[in-house]
């Protein structure tokens, strides 16, 4: 990743690169971030290249540019998709910007540009640094195949997340204090939100396991811990008057949360375009 040190300008809108550029890998990432490293390690994270910029003038403000090599465009989309709360910024394949934090993905790279001293000038600099960085990242890449399985009708596309591990699920949508779905590096997950006609969306969790037996065992584990009163259809009304359902198709576990009624859950589950063997 050293090429970024040459290809990304050291002066952008008057902000100057400060200190040494640094690179961290899977073994050293903890030294760089306290609180988030595990999230990256749950993906195919390879390295992060980091540079700081300081504003011109006295009492300089600081911003940080991080470029994460996530190994593939699918993984870069994944880490980007797990933390989307802000509007788009039109940078890279997809982006969000708010309160001094720019996040985007491009090809196999995920990028964040952040200042903790956000004002109009530093916010503008964050976006300028992001625009300068994206030109160094190469072409776009495809997203995860499982996102393509989702029914498009009523989907909130900017709320779809892709990940592998329980730590990502629980930060996206808390289900349980234990890993009751048996998620790990070998599982692929998509979490999506759908309009229901009310202010609360319905939610879909689609998990791909290595085999049908694992998917069936995960369903059983889920029902035992989360919905023990569910019948053979795996459907139950929860305390907020919404419905939850769990079904298995081949090696896929499909769980619908926050469904307004049983039919809505059934229809969403059956609409998923799982490829034929």
């Amino acid at each position, binding site marked *: 990743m050293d090429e970024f040190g040459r290809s990304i300008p050291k002066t952008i809108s008057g902000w100057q690169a400060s200190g040494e550029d640094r690179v961290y890998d899977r073994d050293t990432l*903890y030294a760089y*971030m*306290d*609180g*988030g490293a*595990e*999230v*990256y390690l749950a993906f195919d994270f390879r390295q992060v290249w980091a540079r700081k910029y300081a504003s011109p003038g006295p009492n300089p403000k600081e911003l*940080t540019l*991080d470029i*994460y090599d996530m190994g593939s465009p699918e993984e870069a989309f994944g880490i980007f998709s797990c*933390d989307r*709360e802000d509007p788009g910024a039109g940078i890279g394949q997809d982006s969000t910007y*708010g*309160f*001094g*934090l720019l*996040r985007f993905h491009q090809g196999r790279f995920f990028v*964040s540009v*952040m200042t*903790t001293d*956000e004002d109009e000038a530093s916010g503008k600099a964050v976006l300028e640094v992001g625009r300068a960085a994206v030109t160094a990242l190469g072409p776009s890449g495809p997203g995860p195949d499982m996102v393509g399985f989702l029914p498009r009708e009523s989907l909130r596309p900017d709320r779809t997340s892709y990940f592998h591990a329980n*730590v990502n699920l*629980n*930060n996206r*949508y*808390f*289900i*349980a*204090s*234990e890993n*009751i779905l048996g998620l790990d590096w070998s599982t692929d997950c998509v979490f999506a939100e759908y309009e229901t006609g009310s202010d609360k969306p319905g939610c879909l969790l689609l998990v791909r396991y290595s085999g049908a037996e694992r998917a069936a065992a995960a369903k059983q584990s889920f029902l035992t*811990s*989360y*919905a023990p009163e569910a019948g053979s259809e795996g459907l139950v009304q*929860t*305390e*907020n008057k919404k419905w939850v359902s769990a079904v298995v198709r081949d090696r896929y576990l499909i769980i619908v949360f926050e469904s307004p009624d049983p039919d809505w859950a059934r229809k969403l589950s059956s609409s998923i375009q799982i490829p034929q063997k």
Partner: protein
Amino acid sequence: MTHPLTRRDFLRGTTAALLGASLGFGQDAAAAKRARVVLVRHRDVLDENSAVNPDILQGMLDEAVMKLLDESDPVKAFAKLVKPGETVGIKTNVWSYLPTPPELESAIKRRLVDAGIAEDRIGLDDHTVRTNPLFVNATSLINARPLRTHYLAGMSGCIKNYIMFAESQEALHPDSCADLGSLFKLPMVKGKTRLNILCALTPQFHGRGPHHFSRRYVWSYKGLIVGQDPVAVDTIGLRLIMAKRREVLGKDQELPPVPKHIQLADTRHGIGVSDINAIELVKLGWNEDILV
């Protein structure tokens, strides 16, 4: 069989009860441990730019420690914690986005000196405590850090602050950092912690971005949570974080996933009290928006 805490427990409104009973792990009634925790707040400890007023902060610390130890004089209170001739390590936290305020470090150091500890026998460190001679030789430790959420452990409090004493930090990461309580049984640490100070001047109740920090999720609470039991102190800290999350993010996001290490520090490692019913919470000072 242990029943995991689930989203449905939030919907039922039973999370508080479950957390009080340590996430479903049974309490040993026979043990009947109790702990006192002091929450002290002052409206003017921060100015409009979040700059700390050191004199007010010193007063808050003094008040809290006096109340904690039933003393009427701050120096006498600190003299109950440490003795002249000791070597004392102040385990601080240097996380760049929200470090232990230097004004708090100074306030602690001042009272240690007042209590008879030689200045050159007081260590102040975070990342290099394992090799710092003042910590290697310390006979007493003071544990001081800010209160914030953590993507993996749920909450970073006084228990997690000792992770720098571990030979391998990574070894403590599995299962949402469940076994952080074991840190207090390391030979370098065991039986030495005299005071735990969870700095809640500007706690962080939610995280965003790679470094899990965004100013939008930090608020001016202007408090210190102080106790001799790190588990009890963190239990109160978690209650505060949960209350703020409930207020801002909604009921179904009140618990940062998943701070099980606090309860397990009690039930698995036996280093303190996590049962809210066994914690005497004493509140001093400013009461507005106190949340706990």
